[in-house]
């Protein structure tokens, strides 16, 4: 019994040394390229971010996923790092079809041909954690949302790569050990590496159970059932387990494949504006959102609908956060920097009194330069400038706040991939206004505010 443990420890030790050498080489490259840290701030951070991304790609699936999780935490990492980690490439060669069929047989208890028709040997997509094959339903199935899927419906079979769980567990154990050591360094302690690593590990382990992704997809499909422009592949639970997720196969173009010819057949402008609104509705109304939204995870169907894929990473917003985020959003889209900063406090952004004037002035400049420029707003430019300014002023960025800024950048990226000339700020105005109106009309809020409003009206009349 002791032998496998010894072998496992040896394998872990070997992998640990491999990772250490790769990390050391990366550190040396960073030191050299940043002239031992003497390079000016923004350029230095960009260089470090690029090297960290390349390191994650070299180290494999666990680190690619950790990098992707880090890219949605602007409250912890520098803006240059999060925008660089967004571009992590998760494309690797496919595993042999035989290995995938073995996993399917182990998971479902029968040969894949006995359960599904026309299983295609060639993978339609291959990532570092899972790969996808196409087949057809052998029997009709009634999904959790929407009408029955008839026999013959094309389905996508997502299968975890064999051995991936063990590989990720080994890498996570090593990364946890490193994080524990980094925790002892006073300079790094403010990032709480060990706690952050625990949080990321829990998220990653959750992502390795594909049923979680299926449940989120069902919920999303239900919440957008009335929206004719949104489509979510429905899950076939009869053939889905921890390691296998079978869902409806939706034909369409990924946003990074969308060319002029494809755009010509759809109302791209309307779809881009609607896409932005759908994402804002997730964050500001529903309280959960697709946190891994990039052009490869969104399809545009020939009917001009948006199809959301891959719900592995989901972010959540609390009601208080949603209310404050809506107010900050209104402040930004109407160019009211003062309002945006005032409500930012409710999201936990603490600006020391002596720096308030400076922060307000710089925010106003950024808003004018990036958001109020007629014709083309540049949300990404604003976010980068704003987050860098806060970092330079040594102002801690709270989690909910970073989330808002990052979400706006994502919305802009997705909308521009559909319709490059869309002015996001102009399109967001009606939605933001409607949202604030809905917040103001809430009975609880009205009850709270009416006596005060009545008193003020009386004072004005008497005056």
């Amino acid at each position, binding site marked *: 019994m002791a032998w496998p443990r010894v072998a496992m420890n040896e394998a872990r030790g070997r992998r640990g040394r491999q990772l250490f050498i790769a990390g050391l080489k990366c550190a040396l490259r960073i030191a050299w390229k940043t002239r031992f840290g003497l390079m000016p701030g923004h350029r230095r951070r960009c260089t470090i971010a690029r090297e960290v991304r390349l390191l994650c790609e070299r180290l494999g699936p666990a680190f690619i996923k950790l990098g992707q999780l880090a890219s949605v935490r602007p409250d912890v990492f520098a803006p240059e790092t999060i925008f660089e980690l967004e571009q992590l490439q998760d494309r690797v060669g496919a595993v042999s079809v035989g290995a995938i069929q073995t996993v399917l*047989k*182990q*998971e*479902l*208890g*029968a040969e894949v041909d006995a359960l599904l028709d026309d299983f295609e040997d060639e993978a339609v997509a291959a990532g570092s954690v899972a790969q996808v094959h196409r087949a057809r339903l052998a029997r009709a199935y009634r*999904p*959790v*949302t929407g009408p029955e899927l008839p026999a013959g419906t094309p389905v996508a079979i997502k299968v975890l790569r064999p051995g991936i769980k063990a590989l990720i567990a080994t890498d996570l154990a090593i990364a946890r050990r490193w994080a524990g050591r980094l925790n002892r360094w006073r300079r790094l302690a403010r990032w709480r590496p060990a706690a952050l690593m625990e949080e990321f590990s829990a998220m990653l382990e959750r992502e390795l159970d594909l*049923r979680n992704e*299926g*449940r989120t997809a*069902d919920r999303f499909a*239900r919440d957008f059932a009335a929206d004719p422009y949104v489509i979510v592949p429905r*899950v076939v*639970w*009869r*053939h*889905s*387990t*921890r390691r296998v997720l079978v869902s409806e196969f939706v034909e369409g173009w990924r946003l990074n494949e969308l060319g002029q010819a494809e755009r010509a057949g759809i109302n791209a402008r*309307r779809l881009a*504006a609607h896409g932005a609104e759908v994402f804002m509705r997730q964050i500001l109304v529903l309280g959960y959102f697709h946190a891994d939204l990039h052009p490869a995870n969104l399809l545009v169907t020939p009917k001009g609908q948006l199809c959301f894929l891959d719900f592995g990473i989901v972010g959540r917003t609390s009601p208080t956060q949603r209310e404050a985020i809506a107010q900050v959003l209104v402040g930004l889209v109407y160019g009211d920097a003062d309002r945006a900063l005032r409500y930012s406090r409710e999201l936990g952004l603490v600006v020391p009194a002596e720096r308030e004037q400076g922060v307000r002035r710089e925010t106003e400049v950024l808003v004018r330069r990036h958001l109020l420029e007629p014709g083309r707003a540049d949300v990404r430019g604003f976010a980068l400038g704003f987050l860098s300014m806060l970092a330079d002023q040594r102002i801690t960025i709270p989690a909910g706040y970073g989330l808002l800024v990052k979400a706006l950048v994502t919305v802009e990226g997705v909308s521009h991939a559909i319709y490059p000339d869309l002015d996001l700020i*102009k*399109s967001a*105005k*009606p939605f933001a*206004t409607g949202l604030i*109106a809905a917040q103001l009309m809430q009975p609880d809020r009205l009850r709270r505010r009416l006596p005060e409003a009545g008193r003020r009206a009386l004072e004005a009349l008497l005056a």
Partner: protein
Amino acid sequence: MNQDFIKLLAAWALFHESADEGWKSAVARGQAQQPGSMGDGPEAFVQGLAALVDEEKEKLKTRLAGEGDSVEAAPGPDLSERLDTLAFELRELRGCVESLQASVDGLAARRDE
């Protein structure tokens, strides 16, 4: 005095009539707007808002009329929403059971091999 009071009421009625006509034309113009035109300026915004409010008013009228007919025949929106949520949760549970069954089948087949 009596005549003045009648005049005051007439002015009040005229004010209401003009406001009503203004409101109706704002609603009509708002209904004729293209989606997304509310951001074109203050007037467009007010007209769009008037159309939204009018639509909500019509919904409220229909709901109140329905409530008056019979409580059993037309359940309130709250009840329908709860029923819808429960039905969805039930279907979610069915999905969980089906997935568990698939896992059990997989494990049983491995044991029998």
